[in-house]
């Protein structure tokens, strides 16, 4: 990113974002006290949400829904519509922000293809999850206690058992764990109101089957890694690798490299944290070796979704030549084609656009770390640096070049570093999140990991014996 691009991004905040989020916040407040006991103010907030989507296909259904809910009749279908309307509002905010970022970066983005398959019937397991979510909305966050959280467990077990429902399962588990740790919520000073409403609304929509676009297309070519991001809650971990795919013009005929993501995930338990988590992803040795060794990858017939998600099959990838992520970004990131965003993922949280920043001055003040690029400042999100990699806030503060993900959260843009070039003890070093994918290279950390024992192997052995009795 050049200084002028950053200025473009920070100076041209799209119109209507604040107003749209105000409507969303109004609805979110109604979830705090619960939809079963709405006062005049909350009823008005729901009406405002209905008003905001009045000219859309949701319009008439939502107006009717708000009347029903205000009269005290709250059914699952009503809640699904409310979640849909809230999601549409947040989706509009996403679109405005995404376009602003694409314009500033000069990034071309693919169009979302027309839907080809109709939505299937709803799975009973999803309906069980929906009824727990409905209970939450009716009760309200303030009145959530251990008992209400515990009732999620049955629906959750059923979801976890079915691999195709993993998205809903992982989200429900994350929300339930967070509510469990906060219970009884009545004693909390401040609630993460928008966050919980975000999780609730997305979970609600995941209980309703989507229409799908065409099947993923098989792609072959060279994959050049830009950086790795790690997501984690108590019982799930996901490694997301951002990369450029060179397909030699096949099959689209376009020769520009495509921005893609590789996501591999594993279930875990809360005692497994830090560098040990790489061991959970050991089923993908070629991918981990490429991250640790900074290698390019040659992939053959790997399925690519229109969303830019490459479905990883370790056996269909071979390690290639070394490829420095900074060199890759300098030469090719500017011209890369960005993928389309699936309708459900239109939420500001999904904005994680790979960017390269150079020639800045890093400085730290009360607001945290920021980069100053030709007089324009952007915040650096060091809180998102994962504990499983060598990248630390100190390294970022000492850096002169940074590969990262452009993100938007609560009114502001920030960069989440995935790799930096820095000068440590007068030596130039490059440090990336994925450097420890094959185990920590720092002997001190490696020793600590070894000392904590092979936790995963021991737990798996116990699971093997105790669960089959």
């Amino acid at each position, binding site marked *: 990113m050049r200084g002028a691009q950053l200025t473009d991004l920070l100076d041209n905040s799209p119109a209507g974002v604040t107003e749209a989020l105000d409507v969303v916040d109004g609805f979110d407040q109604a979830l705090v006290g619960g939809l079963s006991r709405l006062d005049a103010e909350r009823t008005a907030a729901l009406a405002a949400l209905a008003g905001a989507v009045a000219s859309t296909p949701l319009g008439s259904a939502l107006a009717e829904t708000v009347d029903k809910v205000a009269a005290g009749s709250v059914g699952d279908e009503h809640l699904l519509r409310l979640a849909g309307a809230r999601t549409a509002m947040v989706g509009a905010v996403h679109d405005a922000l995404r376009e602003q970022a694409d314009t500033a970066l000069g990034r071309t983005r693919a169009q979302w293809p027309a839907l080809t398959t109709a939505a299937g019937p709803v799975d009973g397991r999803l309906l069980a999850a929906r009824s727990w979510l409905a209970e939450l909305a009716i009760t309200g966050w303030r009145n959530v206690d251990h008992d209400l959280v515990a009732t999620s467990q049955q629906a959750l077990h059923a979801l*976890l058992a079915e691999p195709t429902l993993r998205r809903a399962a992982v989200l429900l588990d994350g929300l339930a764990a967070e509510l469990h740790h906060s219970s009884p919520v009545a004693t909390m000073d401040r609630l993460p109101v928008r966050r919980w409403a975000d*999780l609730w609304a997305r979970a609600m929509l*995941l209980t309703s089957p989507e229409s799908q676009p065409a099947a993923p297309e098989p792609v072959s070519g060279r994959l050049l890694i830009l950086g790795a991001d790690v997501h984690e809650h108590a019982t799930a971990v996901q490694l997301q690798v951002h990369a450029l795919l060179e397909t030699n013009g096949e099959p689209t005929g376009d020769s520009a490299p495509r921005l893609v993501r590789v996501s591999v995930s594993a279930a875990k*338990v809360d005692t497994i*944290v830090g560098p040990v988590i790489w061991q959970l992803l050991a089923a993908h040795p070629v991918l981990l070796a490429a991250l640790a060794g900074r290698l390019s990858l040659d992939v053959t017939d790997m399925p690519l979704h229109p969303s830019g998600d490459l479905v990883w099959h370790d056996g269909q990838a071979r390690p290639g030549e070394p490829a420095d992520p900074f060199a890759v970004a300098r030469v090719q990131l500017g011209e890369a084609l960005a993928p389309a965003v699936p309708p459900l993922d239109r939420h500001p949280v999904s904005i994680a656009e790979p960017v390269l920043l150079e020639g800045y001055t890093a400085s730290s003040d009360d607001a945290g770390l920021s980069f100053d690029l030709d007089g324009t400042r952007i915040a650096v999100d060091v809180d998102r640096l994962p504990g499983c990699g060598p990248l630390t806030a100190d390294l970022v503060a000492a850096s002169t070049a940074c590969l990262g993900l452009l993100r938007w959260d609560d009114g502001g843009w920030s960069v989440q570093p995935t790799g930096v070039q820095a000068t440590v003890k007068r030596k130039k070093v490059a440090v990336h999140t994925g450097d420890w994918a094959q185990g920590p290279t720092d002997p001190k950390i490696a020793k600590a990991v070894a000392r904590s024992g092979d936790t995963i192997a021991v737990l798996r052995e116990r*699971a093997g014996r105790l669960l089959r009795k």
Partner: protein
Amino acid sequence: MADGRLQGVVSSGSDIERVYVSSIAAGTHELSCRTNNNRPCGGLSNGVPCNHIALLAEEAIVQYGAEQVVRFLRFDPDMEITIGHQIVWMLDRNVQVAAVSPAAAVFSRFLRHLSYLELPGSVEALPELHWFPAGAVAR
């Protein structure tokens, strides 16, 4: 560390099919140790802590650090504790065996946790996890 107890599941030294659920209560330091079939541990019955309690304390210090464990169990914070056996020596003078055992609840929670490790991984994206950055849980 949960429900006012340091608790855990310890493998039996003699029988690979068996595990013990051991716990030390915070504050009162009441001990409990029972098998997964809810039989009392033989080692704990004669008034001294059994090996399972010692292993539990040892592992807790590896996982959470001595300082946090000592504070949680409400021992004297000025005591220099670096290994689990020191916790056992401090218990030794005044061992009380808990009247009510939390073993069944702890064991079923443990089994539920183990079941996560048997779930297959996924290669389809889980976009919802963007709400859960890894930095937030790293120690």
